[in-house]
């Protein structure tokens, strides 16, 4: 038989086979496979984990094909805004709480209450504080994953450095005053800046608002009222908090420039952070750090005599203050999976199925977060006893989540945060006193907030 005939025969067989298979697929998927572009920021390090999650989802939902679009962190806001506002956005978007609110109020995403009802999704599996952050104006816009909690309430600390400085490594500081004492003993500075740092109480230049709000709650202060209409941060507790942050930063770390320079061009996720070189004793973390620590320094992570987790210290001079964390304030927190409004009902339905899988399925976010030794917004997931094996400080993590308080914000949170960050910079650089900086910022921010609510109320009359 000639070669050409053989090829012809092979093609014919393939065509017959494909004709035979096609009806089978069509039967399963009703003639159509829905493609869902999944825009997310889980990064290259966790892409394989996310692919595994997607694989499990597609096994259960063969008619939905998820296209995992991992995005770079740089220019995130720009990428997200242009994608969400375009006429052809991704099928499902991973967004933070302020972004979710912004998109919700702009009509770019849809509320998912009707899907929740139709699918019988049990929202009680989530911690109230976690699912609560995803509501705007009484409507639910996304299911959470990972936790918004554990973003500010926890510190990891280096036991070896405490031991060397003459402190008990098993008794980390519980109060501002104790942390100050230990940090002063550990910090080493020279004309080039800080060589070894005890603790940072501020993220760095331009990042002061998130640090301030986190410390504010450990001094029994509040950022805003429950209804989000009144800003409360310039209270006596707020002023005392900022003064303490400034004094700590200037007296122990040698100024905010030193803090900024100390962390310049480093990232915990990439393994070049001062933590890995025993150059910082107390590090404010979010719970993603455990996974990064384990990946970048598995030996260090496995050695529980080397490091521990502690709760964010509180102001011992304030009898009402205690350990506290905040959720839903930070611009990079309270993630959810939101569904663009422009898509067809079928695609939105598929997007919800995927969001639900990520949110509540044991092989979804639950497994994904366990693999990173970090908690889930689903209560039952965190009750897995194996967590104590993969994260030696798991009990403190759970304790930290319990101290978290939800912060009320609005869609204009990005602009408010910018004003507050600038005010705190002015105080840190000595341009204004702490009281003046906070009071000036409060006046400007409240005006902006009042404008927002006036417009919102007029639209919703």
């Amino acid at each position, binding site marked *: 038989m000639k070669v050409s005939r053989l090829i012809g025969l092979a093609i014919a067989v393939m065509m017959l086979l494909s004709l035979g298979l096609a009806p089978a697929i069509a039967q399963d998927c009703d003639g159509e496979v829905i493609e869902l572009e999944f825009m997310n920021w889980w990064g290259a390090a966790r892409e394989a984990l996310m692919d595994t999650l997607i694989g499990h989802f597609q096994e259960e939902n063969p008619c939905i094909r998820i296209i995992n679009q991992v995005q770079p962190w740089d220019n995130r*806001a*720009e990428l997200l*805004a*242009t994608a*969400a*506002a375009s006429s052809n956005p991704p099928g499902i978007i991973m967004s933070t709480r302020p972004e979710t609110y*912004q*998109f919700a*109020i*702009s*009509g*770019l995403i849809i509320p998912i209450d009707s899907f929740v009802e139709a699918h019988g999704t049990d929202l009680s599996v989530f911690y109230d504080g976690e699912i609560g952050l995803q509501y705007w104006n009484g409507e639910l816009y996304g299911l959470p994953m990972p936790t918004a909690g554990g973003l500010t309430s926890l510190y990891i600390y280096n036991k070896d450095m405490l031991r060397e400085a003459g402190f008990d490594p098993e008794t980390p500081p519980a109060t501002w005053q104790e942390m100050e004492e230990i940090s002063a003993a550990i910090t080493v500075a020279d*004309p*080039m*800046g800080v060589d070894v740092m005890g603790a940072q109480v501020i993220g760095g*230049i*331009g990042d002061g608002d998130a640090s301030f709000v986190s410390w504010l709650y450990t001094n029994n202060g509040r950022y805003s009222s429950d209804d989000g209409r009144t800003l409360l941060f310039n209270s006596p507790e707020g002023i005392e908090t900022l003064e303490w942050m400034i004094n700590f930063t200037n007296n122990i770390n040698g100024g*905010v*420039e030193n803090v*900024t*320079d*100390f962390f*310049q*061009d480093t990232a915990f996720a990439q393994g070049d952070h001062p933590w890995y070189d025993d150059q910082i004793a107390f590090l404010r973390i979010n719970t993603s750090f455990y996974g990064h620590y384990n990946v970048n320094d598995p030996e260090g992570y496995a050695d529980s005599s080397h490091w521990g987790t502690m709760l964010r210290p509180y102001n011992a001079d304030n009898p009402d203050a205690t350990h506290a964390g905040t959720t839903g304030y930070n611009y990079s927190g309270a993630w959810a999976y939101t569904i663009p409004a422009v898509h067809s009902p079928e695609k939105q339905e598929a997007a919800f199925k995927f969001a639900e899988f990520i949110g509540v399925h044991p092989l979804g976010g639950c497994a994904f977060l366990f693999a990173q030794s970090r908690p889930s917004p689903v209560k039952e997931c965190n009750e897995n006893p194996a967590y104590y094996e993969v994260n030696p400080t798991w009990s403190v993590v759970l304790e930290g989540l319990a101290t978290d308080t939800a912060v009320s914000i609005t869609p204009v949170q*990005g*602009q408010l945060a*910018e004003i507050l*960050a*600038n005010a705190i*910079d*002015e105080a840190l*650089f000595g*341009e204004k006193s702490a009281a003046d900086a906070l009071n000036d910022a409060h006046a400007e921010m409240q005006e902006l907030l009042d404008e927002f609510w006036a417009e919102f109320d007029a639209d919703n009359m």
Partner: protein
Amino acid sequence: MQASLKAQRSESDTSWKVRLQEWWFRNRALIGYAFIFPWFAGFIIFDAAPFVYNLYLSFTDYQIGTVGTPPWIGFENYTEIFTEDKLFGKSMYNTLYYLGFSVPLRLIFAFLIALILNLRVRGMELYRTLFYVPSVVPLVAATVIFAGFLNTRYGFLNQFLVLIGATPVRWLSSPDAIKPSLILLSLWGFGGQMIIFLAGLQSIPEDLYEAAAIDGGTGWHRLIYITVPLMTPTIFFNLLLGLIGGFQVFEQVFILIGTHGGALQAGLVYMLHVYNKAFRDFEFGYAAALSVILFLIIFVLTLMVVYTSNRWVFYGDAQDDEA
């Protein structure tokens, strides 16, 4: 027979060519337009139309999620910029500061290097290439390299300062040092201007220098009385490009200090403010108004420079040329 056919074909070819030439001549204007059409189409689609649309948006309250026609608000955006926006003044000041130092410094630096590279020295082609190489390095890569140089603790610049006994500088974290750092970085890409200067220097007639030498002119005299005056058209050209580019400085600032603008927002340049308004606050109409204002400032400044150029740019003696 074959020769006859060949002759006929040759005649036919000639007449075809003649006809084509005649057609070409008759339609030369059309053909000219056809040649410039790709550029013209690109200009309309990618420059003029977006410009007009941007102008329109600047009078609207166009925000993220606006569906259909954005609401027309007249001059409200412009009023807000001039009466309420604190960062407008700050970003404009930062940009003018940057411009005021970076443009002249870069011009002087490029001109001096071009003068040196215009000398007749063995291996000059190699030196010229070496000096031009930084200009072909992408701006993003150059900025990342500079970020390493400027690192307070480990950067080359501070290590050098410490070595000579000077005080290290917090290049990117001190409000006093951020703008000088950006100006320093702006010198990196001097190669483009240097090449233009070099071309200008090589077009100066040699006999002018010979005449000056015969009259006893020193090197300084030749520079001041021959080179600089004859280079003024090139200086003018580079100045205009520098001003226009300087007002639009963005990428290097964005990479070096982020969208916030650094300590006390000392590095918040105008384009960064526009970017923040558009992509962080999602106020596209407002950002469009900021862009229009920037355009007008650049336009007016360019007109002023062009207008004053009659007084300091030397294009040669027109009467002599005609004679």
